[in-house]
């Protein structure tokens, strides 16, 4: 008798696992996740924000958690994603992804610093680079030995998809490549081949109907009501409260003293010779807001909307939650903590200002789900509603799932709707990566890779045909 443990090989046919040291890359707006297929969690999680410093001769990029939170003067914090949820800044994206992969996984190869893509800003001409790299020994490319699986948003454009494979093949020299949608992979991570995947990330909320491991493209819905929207709502709450709640990020505070709830902060602040840029401050504020989301913000769990009158009264009678800013200011947040995320479900409850107008009704999550279900064949609807996979960092908001459950049952009272939300934080945040990790470590997946040879034969358009 053989009791399986970590050092015994699984029995043949037990599962179709057959790892080929593939790397899975899951770029998101908030973080970019990378790791070896077959592992449970991405080894490398690096912020998708990067620092950029322009000197007269050169543009320098700073990647990684440590670099972007370092208050250097004139460090601009940027993100390579466009507002439409498609990668915009391809050059930096390539570099950041390469950083995410090489930093923790493969290790950097000793390459010519001008060519490894990390430091160059001079050689932006694609053609010249291609020639350059072809001339070099293949060993110098970072991914020469690892097949690469990259995730993409469900609404990715055909052009963007081709760009992915070009980067992987030309710049990184990967022997095999595949592109898969985050929705499908998140479903796989929960062991589902069909379902509706609700992904509430940082920049976008997406609802993706998936059938037998394939996205139903007509049903894919996205809206900007996600983590960043909630952050924005919190800013509104801070601003509209009287007196205004000051939002001071960590890097400004040298030391703090304890003050009473609601009292003005008494802290000593740091001084900078060259003050950090606005974008740097915004990003640092975002960190505080994320803390606030984690510990204070609560979603009204239903029944009914928060703003229907009676619910607000009920909420007032619940005990509040305290929060302390980095500078020591603190307060207990009562019913207002419900308002930050209410806009995700009820557009009319969103806090508005000139710069952030009222969101459209059909951008709310219930409406997205409704639209997604409606664009699916009637026969498949009950199946999909029975497998609603919830993923993305913002779904970790307290009571988010209760509310989502209420809303969906409210729209579809006659079907058996089931939410599948992994309990652990890691699985919720990195579901797409985990699904990719599963997929890329399957023996049956070997035949699906797009090999370098195929890419050379058919060109970049092969992704359209193979990664459906």
């Amino acid at each position, binding site marked *: 008798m053989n009791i399986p443990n970590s050092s015994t090989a699984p029995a043949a046919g037990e599962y179709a696992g057959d790892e080929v040291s593939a790397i899975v890359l899951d770029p998101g707006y908030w973080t970019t996740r990378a790791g070896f297929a077959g592992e449970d969690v991405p080894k490398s999680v690096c912020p998708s924000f990067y620092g950029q410093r322009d000197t007269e001769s050169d543009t320098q990029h700073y990647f990684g958690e440590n670099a972007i939170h370092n208050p250097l003067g004139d460090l601009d914090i940027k993100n390579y994603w466009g507002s439409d949820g498609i990668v915009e800044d391809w050059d930096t994206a390539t570099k950041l992804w390469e950083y995410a992969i090489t930093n923790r996984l493969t290790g950097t190869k000793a390459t010519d610093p001008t060519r490894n893509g990390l430091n160059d800003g001079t050689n932006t001409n694609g053609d010249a680079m291609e020639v350059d790299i072809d001339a070099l020994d293949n060993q110098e490319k970072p991914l020469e030995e690892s097949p690469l699986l990259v995730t993409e948003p469900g609404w990715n454009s055909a052009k963007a998809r081709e760009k992915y494979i070009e980067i992987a093949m030309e710049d990184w020299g990967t022997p095999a490549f595949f592109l898969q949608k985050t929705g499908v992979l998140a479903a796989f991570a929960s062991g589902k081949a069909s379902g509706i995947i609700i992904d509430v990330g940082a920049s976008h909320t997406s609802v993706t109907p998936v059938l037998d491991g394939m996205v139903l493209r007509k049903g894919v819905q996205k809206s900007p009501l996600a983590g960043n929207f909630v952050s924005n709502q919190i800013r509104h709450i801070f601003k509209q409260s009287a007196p205004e709640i000051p939002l001071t990020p960590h890097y400004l505070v040298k030391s703090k003293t304890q003050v009473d709830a609601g009292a003005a902060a008494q802290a000593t602040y740091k001084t900078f010779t060259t003050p950090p840029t606005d974008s740097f401050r915004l990003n640092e504020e975002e960190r505080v807001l994320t803390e606030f989301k984690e510990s204070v913000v609560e979603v009204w769990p239903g029944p009914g909307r928060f703003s229907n009158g009676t619910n607000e009264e009920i909420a007032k009678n619940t005990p509040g939650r305290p929060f302390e800013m980095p500078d020591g200011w603190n307060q207990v947040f009562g019913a207002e903590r419900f308002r930050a995320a209410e806009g995700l479900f009820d557009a009319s409850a969103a806090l508005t200002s000139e710069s952030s107008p009222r969101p459209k009704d059909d951008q709310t999550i219930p409406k997205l789900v409704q639209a997604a279900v409606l664009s699916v064949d009637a026969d498949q609807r009950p199946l999909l509603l029975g497998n609603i996979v919830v993923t993305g960092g913002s779904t970790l908001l307290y009571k988010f799932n209760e509310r989502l459950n209420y809303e969906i049952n409210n729209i579809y009272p006659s079907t058996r709707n089931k939410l599948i939300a992994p309990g652990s934080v890691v699985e919720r945040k990195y579901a797409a990566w985990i699904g990719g990790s599963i997929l890329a470590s399957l023996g*049956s997946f070997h035949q699906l890779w797009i090999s370098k*040879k*195929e890419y050379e034969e058919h060109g970049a358009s092969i992704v359209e045909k193979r990664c459906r």
Partner: protein
Amino acid sequence: MATGRDVRDMLGLPMGGEAPKAAVQKRPKPAGGTRKIQGVAREVAALYGERPPPVAVYEESKSYRAKRQNTGPAKKWEQQPFRNPVRSDGLILRHWKRKHTTAPAVQPSEDATMQDGENTEPYIDTCSDYAKYDIKVDLPTFTDDEYDAYLRSDDWSREETDYLIQMVGDYAYRWAIVWDRYDFQPSLAHETLENTNGDTDQALATMPFAPSKKRSVEDLKARFYDISAKLMKQRIPEVQMDAEQYSTYEMLTKFDPVMERNRKMLASALMNRSMDEVKEEEFLLTELQRINMAANRLDAEREELRARLDAPQHNPAVSAGLQAFTSSQALQALFQQLFQQDRSKKRASGGGTGPGRLSLSANDMVHTPGSAQAQLSAANRRQSMASQAVAQTPVKHLSPRQEERFNVSTHDRLTSGVTFGSDKLLKMRQAKSNVQTQKIGAALAELGIPDVIPIPTSKVGGTFEMLVTKLGKLLDVRKVREKEEGEVRVLQNMKDGTKEEKMDTETKEEPEDENDDNPNYGEDDADAAGEDEDDDDAEGEEEDGDEDQDTNGDGDGDGDVVPDDLDAEGEDESSVQPSRATSQGATTAGHKRSASVFSQGSEERSKRIRK
């Protein structure tokens, strides 16, 4: 779980196995090392106390682990490059495999092809484990001529048809996805679709199509199925199709897009019902369920009640439903049963014997042992075990003679497990009350029947049961007699003078009875008969009414006549009534013996039975 000890105990073997067993349990202990136990396991072990654990599971796992440690040095693994045979591009990937050793003879199980791994040039494996997952779908194919001849459609261009078929192939007949991705652009399609061929232009030229029609799943399916059906018919004429092919063909031709569309509309309407409608339906459904449950319960209760009221309904044939009455034998039995019921009812009303005496029919059931038995089982399970001796209705294959010869017995219902004949005999000796048991014991002793009957076969058991039944009745009669005697004595004392003539007449009758009855006593009962005679003598002054009560059986008579004899009554009801039923024809003598001694009325009855 039965251990060897239990088995030994059951078989009455000496507990000699004890010593080796203890040794077995002790041996692995030092090997596993009591000192080695750590952590929680140690505490668990402490709970066992001094004694060794009852099950040696722990030791087993211990020894397993010890073995595992000795499997030799760690096996080496290496990244083995391999090729997947389904891939046409010869992509080489690397996966982790056990490194094969240099000595080929040591491990004959190792794949022979792997031996050349030590060569300088890297060996590339072919891994076809997952080739089975490379599945291609079957698609209808047709030539241009075929298309022109059969497949033309006003609504579909050749180009779009090709596109459709390609899509169906690409998405492996997943229609929801085909429809989702379906995006046909007639004019632009030239460049993007490789498989469009020359006649596209011609088809386009001949027929002007509306650009990019919006097609529903049903449209796509209808077109595709139509093509498939037509081609199928072309390849295999309808008459030559086998059943399976024809059913496929039928399915293809019978596809009705309009109906499908309506169905889907209904389905989505069902899904889009409002909360109120759903609630209402839910309410109705629960209501229905509630009603159903109540109805079921009511049925069950009624059934139970019926079963209780109508003891003969216990007949398994009845409970098995109508199917049980398909054979003529069963029908016969049913008829007799109904007949008996009818009769007993008539008797109950006409004979003035009072209500609730259905069991009166026991005497009449001489010829329907089946129903009698059912009655018996309903009334007294305990005694039913002793009922083998009763002649069974030959339901199955054997005639009674054969049954007897082969010692086969059929049973309506078997209790599980094994019972011993001697147990049954022992049980029969016991009545519900101690007094009664003692009385029976004394009576048996009087008859000279030993406490242990040597070979308790079922026949012996039957006979013994008959005897005990008779004894029971005898005891009843004795009891009644004693009561009556007492009464008579009282009355006598009261009206000493006036009653003398009556006593004379009664005593005259007595010898008559004896003459009549004596030949009927069984040969084995010769002693008992003598004894009965003694009793009978003493009972000379019985009245007619008493006789009636007793023949009606049941010991009910006792209750009426002897109201203070309460404990005896219960026992009488349970033991005497069924035992009469079991004894049936064979016990006629018994009836007579007990009855006849009282008066002429009983004589008449026994005569009727004999007829």
